[in-house]
């Protein structure tokens, strides 16, 4: 199989990741709950993972780094901490359901979308500045569109939020591990990310970087600390980490983060951008591609449509030939609506540090055959 669905999850991992998971499963106990070696080593694993994460994302305080089960989990914590019933929330036009559904679950929330065209960061900033009225209570922006790979100008947006004193939540699902991302520079209230995409860890892992004064736990339960209290501790990370941690997953996540740090995020970004340019060039006569004129505003994601093919049928035909891509709305109907592709959807190719040009050549050859033969 040739895997081109890394925007969904990283299937190819560094060898160190499954090794770490397997070792943790048989050697590490419940962190912070015991005074024996297996529990202490487990606690040390969690702390060193927070440290590694802090080094990668410019967060010097390990207490501000919370383990979650996914970016969706982290976004739910962030949104439910900051967005109260009746609040006005400004979002980008490229948000995933992981943002929009939690917002819709809060009564009477007024969701405003800073509409602007795809791959135009200056227009994005203008629309954002125009929509950032005094009525806005919270801003939520994705760093990168999961459908189109559009890299949004979150650094500038973070500055505007700080200047206006508006809390800012960043969805880093598609950028963590693939693009430079610094909490030290962004100073966002929350940055949510999965552990299993660009960070190359196992599914079921995620991270939430917290700098918010208002934090509402989604889960209440045991933390191995302040056990006589009837409510969750005030201090992070305990406040958001009820229940036994996913130690095996976190062991794999640490191995993934170490790999990313060894390779270098800039090097990974450059590799993925080159592959997307190569892929788009090869597809120019076969498909309608959603490609940025300026390659620096597109990550390792390329959406496309082929004339005569339904996107799901094309992805299924590619699947039968050994190519893994995702089609449809990618859990981001707002993004498709904003790009004008809500009705037909797109097929999405997404690359990873392990994707090669040879694999893309094989994909292009098969896509060419399918495009010529048509759906029937």
């Amino acid at each position, binding site marked *: 199989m040739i895997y081109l669905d890394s925007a969904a999850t990283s299937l190819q991992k560094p060898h160190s990741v499954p090794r770490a998971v397997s070792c943790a499963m048989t050697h590490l106990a419940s962190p912070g709950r015991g005074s024996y070696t297996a529990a202490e080593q487990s606690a040390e694993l969690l702390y060193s993972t927070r440290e590694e994460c802090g080094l990668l994302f410019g967060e010097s305080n390990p*207490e501000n780094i919370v383990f979650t089960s996914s970016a969706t989990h982290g976004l739910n914590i962030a949104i439910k901490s900051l967005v109260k019933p009746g609040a006005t929330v400004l979002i980008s036009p490229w948000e995933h359901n992981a943002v929009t559904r939690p917002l819709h679950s809060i009564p009477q929330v007024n969701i405003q979308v800073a509409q602007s065209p795809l791959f135009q960061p200056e227009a994005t900033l203008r629309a954002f500045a125009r929509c950032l009225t005094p009525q806005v209570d919270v801003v939520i922006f994705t760093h990168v569109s999961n459908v189109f790979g559009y890299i949004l100008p979150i650094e500038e947006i973070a500055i505007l939020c700080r200047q206006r004193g508006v809390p800012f939540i960043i969805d880093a699902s598609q950028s963590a591990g693939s693009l430079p991302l610094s909490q030290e520079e962004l100073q966002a209230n929350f940055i949510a990310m999965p552990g299993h995409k660009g960070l190359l860890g196992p599914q079921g892992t995620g991270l939430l970087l917290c700098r918010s004064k208002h934090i509402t736990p989604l889960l209440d339960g045991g933390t191995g600390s302040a056990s*006589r209290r009837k409510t969750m501790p005030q201090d992070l990370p305990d406040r958001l980490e009820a229940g036994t941690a996913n130690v095996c997953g976190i062991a794999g996540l640490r191995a993934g983060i170490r790999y990313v740090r060894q390779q270098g995020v800039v090097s990974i970004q450059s590799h993925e951008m080159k592959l997307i340019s190569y892929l788009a060039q090869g597809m120019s006569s076969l498909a309608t591609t959603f490609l940025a004129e300026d390659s620096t505003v597109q990550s390792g994601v390329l959406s496309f449509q082929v004339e005569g093919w339904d996107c799901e049928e094309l992805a299924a035909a590619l699947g039968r030939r050994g190519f893994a891509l995702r089609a449809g709305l990618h859990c981001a109907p707002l993004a498709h609506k904003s790009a004008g592709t809500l009705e037909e959807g797109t097929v999405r190719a997404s690359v990873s540090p392990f994707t090669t040009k040879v694999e893309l050549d094989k994909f292009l050859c098969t896509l060419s055959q399918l495009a010529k033969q048509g759906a029937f």
Partner: protein
Amino acid sequence: MVYYLIICRSLTYAQRTAKALERAGITSYMTRAPKHIAKEGCGHGVKVAQKNLESALAVLKKAELSPKQLYITFGDNSYREVSL
């Protein structure tokens, strides 16, 4: 042997404390707080030798790490709170 036990507000805080001391070359080790002094139940702390206490507290102050409580122990399972 006389030790001081620095009680911290969480496990992660105790880990930060231990790392800061380690970076400064001060030997310490982490421990769960004895039940009778963990007032909220289940606490975490860092033990340092008596001779290192002064430099340890200076390191923690510089690192902006605030101990929650401080106890002295004489190795006989008795703990006496010491004012910070």
